């Protein structure tokens, strides 16, 4: 991919994005909660299994303190796993092959758990596909990092996967912003608090932003066939909008009056969404580095050796 410096930047950005998501998710699971309840207390799905495996009626199961403690324990255990994965994302790649594989293994498990978490959100949001899609960047960031650390992948494939993750994230977000699903009150509140506008204006802005989300998704997917300046401009907006919607979690919800409580509740929501801005930035830099059109036709593969050298730095 372009130059050695460019690879180093990409690796660094992917590490930061993955670590942020992991640490944000870790705080969420350890301090607060995660939608495991949407699965564990899915009466339609599990009522039969609960009777067959646990010998309990659904009512006994759903009101059992032991079951509740078990679910809480599973949530906390996930928090610890995410914390470990966050550390692994920031550690230099070990020189020993076994440790290097272990690092990639931890990151892979972390990425898988984040995908599982996205699926839980999908369940918790009444199976709205948008809820699944808008979190794509969060699990894709560590997944892309793992692929990057493995090396030997053509830049074209990396860029395609990166583009897919960005497109799905913005498409999912756009579904909510334009009102395909009911516009979440939290979105409207964030715009009202963040920009100091009234509710009608906030809704109008959200609809406009949703349309732009779809534009971003389309442009990112069709980038190889579109003018470079258009792609770069779109990605610049994607970085800015991704950063704004990420930071808005803190900006519009943290109160000086209840600083400690609101930071504890909202900072991780921003941190774990940082890939929504960082992945478009990675693609932006990648496209901008691509000064010669022949780059796409003859992608430069990254080798394990170069990856290792870069990640140790």
């Amino acid at each position: 991919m372009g130059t050695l410096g460019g690879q180093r930047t990409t690796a660094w950005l992917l590490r930061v994005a993955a670590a942020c998501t992991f640490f944000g998710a870790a705080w969420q699971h350890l301090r607060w909660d995660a939608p495991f309840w949407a699965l564990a207390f899915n009466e339609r799905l599990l009522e039969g299994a609960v009777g067959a495996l646990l010998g309990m009626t659904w009512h006994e199961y759903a009101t059992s303190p032991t079951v509740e403690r078990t679910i809480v324990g599973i949530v906390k255990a996930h928090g610890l796993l995410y914390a470990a994965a966050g550390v692994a994302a920031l550690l230099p790649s070990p020189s020993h092959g076994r440790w290097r594989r272990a690092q990639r293994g931890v990151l892979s498990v972390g990425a898988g758990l984040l995908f599982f978490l996205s699926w839980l959100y999908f369940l918790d949001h009444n199976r709205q596909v948008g809820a699944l899609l808008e979190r794509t960047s969060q699990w894709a960031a560590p997944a892309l990092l793992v692929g990057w650390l493995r090396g030997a992948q053509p830049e074209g494939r990396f860029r395609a996967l990166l583009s897919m993750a960005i497109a799905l994230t913005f498409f999912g977000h756009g579904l909510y912003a334009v009102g395909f699903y009911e516009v979440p009150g939290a979105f409207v509140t964030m715009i009202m608090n963040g920009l100091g506008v009234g509710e009608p204006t906030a809704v109008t802005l959200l609809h406009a932003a949703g349309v732009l989300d779809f534009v971003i998704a389309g442009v990112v997917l069709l980038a190889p066939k579109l003018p470079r300046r258009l792609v770069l401009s779109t990605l610049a907006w994607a970085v800015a909008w991704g950063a704004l919607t990420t930071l808005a979690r803190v900006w519009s919800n943290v109160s000086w009056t209840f600083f400690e409580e609101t930071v504890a509740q909202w900072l991780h929501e921003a941190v774990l969404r940082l890939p929504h801005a960082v992945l478009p930035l990675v693609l932006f830099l990648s496209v901008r580095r691509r000064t010669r059109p022949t780059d796409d036709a003859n992608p430069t593969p990254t080798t394990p050796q170069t990856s290792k050298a870069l990640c140790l730095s």
Partner: protein
Amino acid sequence: MNLLPFMNPVPHMNTMPLTKTFRPAPLFVALGLLAGSLATAGPAVADTARYRLSWRDDPSTTMVVGWDQTSGSGGVVHYGKTDEGTNASAYPLSQGVDRVTSAFGMENHFVRLNNLEPDTAYYFVIRDDTSTSPRFWFRTAPATPKAFSVVAGGDSRNNRTPRRNGNQVVAKVRPLVVMLGGDFTDDDTATQWRNWFDDWQMSTSPDGRMYPMLATRGNHDSNASIYELWDTPSDRNHYALTFGGTMARLYTLNSEIAAGGNQRAWLDGDLSDHACITFKLAQYHKPMRPHTSGKSEGQDEYTHWSDLFFNHRLDLAVECDSHMVKRTWPLVPATSGDDEGFVRDDDEGTTYIGEGCWGAPTRTPNDSKSWTRAAGSFNQVNWIQVHPDRIEVRTLPTDSIAGADSVSDADPFSVPNNLEVWTPTSGAVVTVPARERPDCGLTPEEVIAFGDTWSFHDQGVDLGPNWAAPDFEDGAWASGPGQLGYGDGDEATVLTDADPNHPSVYFRKAIDLPRPVLAAQLRVLFDDAVAVWVNGARVYDVNMDDGTDFATFASASSSDNEEAQATLDAAGFVVGRNVVAAMVKQRNGSSSDVSFDLSLRVTLAPPPGGTGGAGGNGGGATGSGAGMSQGSTGAGNPTGGSNRTDAPGEDGGGCSYVGAKGRWGWLAALLGLGLMLRRPRRRRDDEGG
């Protein structure tokens, strides 16, 4: 021939598991067909099911009857004050369907009955072209202060056994109305909603009495499901109804849309308009301060509602979502000596109860506060008795309902035998006494109305910075009634339409106020931006982020004739002459229209020796009005009001917000965008190796 038993209109509900399908043997099918062919009058099986009642207007004179039309068509509600059984023709009144929604796997039919008599039993059947429903009945609300009861709870979504138990509590407690605070079903799907309504039939008492629902949206519901299945007053699902004349007003709020903005403006206005109501109760889904540690705080609800609850002395708030039990002492919002933003105040506080466990997995109450009265973990609903001089709340565990007796209509407030009532150490009953209403009798009056005459200056001249001051000389200005503007064709006074447009137009109006102002509500119509001054101090603006200099244009476009509301700081007004000034801006030099009109409602202090603060105990209060209210207009960006955190403990005056973040937000956005779009340098730092 009607084959349905008269006294048990839903005979299957206690005898056959609802999840099982009855598969008749062929012999029974043949016998059924034979019986059907021999029937001489009336259908054997109703083509209607999943019956429900709700209120969307004055509960003393209206009722919404809803059902699922499973087959057949032409459903009509036949009703009257005398029980005529299932003989539809014998009822003196009838009404056809007002609304049909094909939603969630059901053909939901709604008949909106009007002109009913207060505090009266009405019997009814639904007859369509092929069948007649069982006979049901309901009772309208009293129109004058008289005790009534409510069953309130929430979260009936994913534990069906207690959900049915809770429904049986309704059938046995026989309340006037049911409040369910959201999360009806788990996934908001057709199957789950059909199951839910099948289960809801168990809330019908054996004598056929049904109970109207005030439905609330939770995070597992959608606005559409609540609106289309319960025929609520609007798809925003926040509304309020008055019971017993001046006795109680029940607010249903929607925590799944923005708590601020339009909803807050509506709530503030409605609470002000009903200042003399003896008791005010609210239900909503997301608790401000959940009592289980995994649940995040409802900061949006706290920020936008708790001060209104305090300012208007809301008595009781029913919260849900957390699947456990809590009661608090009366609370007021505070920022010193507080626990998570509340302090106990038995005289002026709001009592909060909850948190939603009608039919849901239970959670541990591991996040109690210093002001928590009691907490627990079991499936329950609250039985709220509203008496003229007090509210009593009892929490009813639902697991033991099967062995309980029913409340009798002759003695509707005595606890029947074997009805389990939760008894924590702080006591079984939470009593909320009636109290003085500080804003009662102080009816807001409109001192400036839409259509009033304004002095204006539209000649494209910069009048400098002091034009809004009270003593600025405006005697030479032109004047005319609202709406003022040009370009839309609806103006009463047409302003100068220059080419290019003048950026700004000035407006001024003087009013005399005989007594101090306790509260003030602004409503302004504008296009594209407006700022408002009171006695020279800017108190409100929208789309004015680029400043209020004459030469600047609006920072954003508005809709045509956009409206906004805001609560103004009462301290900005003085006794005597007050000057309200406004500046309206165009978006740019070629925009086609300008619009302006303004309304100002103020609550004045009582005259010396007056009776402000009257009310309470349900007697003699005025200005309340009955019926439904739900809001729709917008809110803007007050700039001169007191900050919310200053409000607790202070009497009088509303609270408003400071929108200073907004400008920084715009700046940050523009700066970020500019950085990203700047021209790339030939060599980047990260390419240097």
